[in-house]
């Protein structure tokens, strides 16, 4: 098992589906961070056989947890302090996501009023269905 000893303070995004590490890195804009970021690809996992891991030498508030939950709520976030895991945060599907995805319905008010926030609400957690709060259009992944 990989250890997180080299990371004294920071966060580890664990249980990322193997091969998805880079897309999470891009979606969370981790390339914009000044701190160290490590991506481990195809790490061995008892639960998933293979998984990706991202280590970030920064505080929890540097990542958008709603966005992470929206992308994959099975990812776990470990908070590291003094080289130890002090907290495991479970990521839930966010009830609402704002300006993360765009409504594509040409009849929606957001299609003509550019300054409006694109807000989607979780209407069916089992099927992970999000709908635009303005027009009820389902977001298509």
């Amino acid at each position: 098992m990989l250890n997180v000893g080299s990371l004294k303070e920071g966060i580890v995004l664990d249980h990322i589906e193997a091969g998805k590490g880079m897309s999470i890195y891009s979606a969370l804009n981790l390339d914009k961070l000044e701190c160290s970021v490590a991506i481990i690809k195809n790490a061995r996992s008892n639960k998933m056989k293979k998984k990706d891991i991202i280590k970030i030498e920064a505080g929890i508030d540097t990542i958008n947890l709603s966005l992470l939950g929206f992308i994959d709520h099975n990812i776990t976030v470990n908070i590291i302090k003094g080289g130890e895991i002090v907290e495991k945060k479970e990521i839930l599907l966010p009830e609402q996501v704002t300006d993360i995805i765009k409504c594509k319905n040409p009849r929606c008010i957001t299609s003509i009023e550019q300054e409006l926030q694109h807000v989607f609400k979780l209407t069916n957690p089992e099927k992970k269905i999000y709908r635009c709060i303005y027009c009820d259009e389902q977001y298509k992944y």
Partner: protein
Amino acid sequence: MKHFLNPLDFSVEELDEVLDLADEIRANPKRFAKVCEGKKLATLFYEPSTRTRLSFEAAMMNLGGNVLGFSSADSSSAAKGESVSDTIRMVSCYADICAMRHPKEGAPLVASMKSSIPVINAGDGGHQHPTQTLTDLYTIRCLKGKFSGMTIGLCGDLKFGRTVHSLIEALIRYEDIKFVLISPEELRVPSYIRDEVLKQNNQQFEEVESLEEALPKLDILYMTRVQRERFFNEDDYLRMKDSYILDKEKMKLAKSDMIVLHPLPRVNEISVEVDDDERACYFKQVEFSVYARMALIMILLGVDKPC
């Protein structure tokens, strides 16, 4: 402050309160002739409407209030590019309540977020038309005396027909309702109505294409128009527009106490010869719409009933 953007914004009890007040108004309209004296209703109609706008204006005038507004986007600041948010902030300074119709879905919700006066959704694209639902519910209650136990056929454009979506959402809150959804395959109810409203609530419903087969089992037939303005492609509209035409012959298949409703305007989906049938109740709906909107305006404004 309460808005009315979706029929579900009101609980069943709150809707009953509106319908009970509408009953009182209908019984004695003169009693309510001055309850909104000094109040102003703004009708913000970004797309053409005859019935809904006139019904709102008549409702406010019947209550002794005044009306201001515009009847198309061309005659408003929207033509100059003003946002809905800015328009409603401005209108909030002029009026006490507003009714908004907009071709884009969600525009009344955007308005309600910035408004300091109650906003009524008077129809937003193919999305919702809650005051038509209020009218439909009031008409059904007046003519059938109840909602429970009814088999309701919804016929025509069930995909873009916002009145249908709103009515289904409102009616599933009552017990033992059965829906028969009659439409061509291309105009069936959207998936969110089928999956998250009907199926999720274990609602009894069936989707059929034949009006003739459905008619004998219906207590209420709700006809809708195939709306040209909802199609991006004229060819699709022309192909669908004559899908269902209710005529005297088809009415022979219906129960003697079935009622025919229609949000109007109709084009050709109900033959004029049906108008004389006592089961044709779509013009009564127009009359009831004014009482329902009067009651809604009073409740949203928090106006007391006259002594």
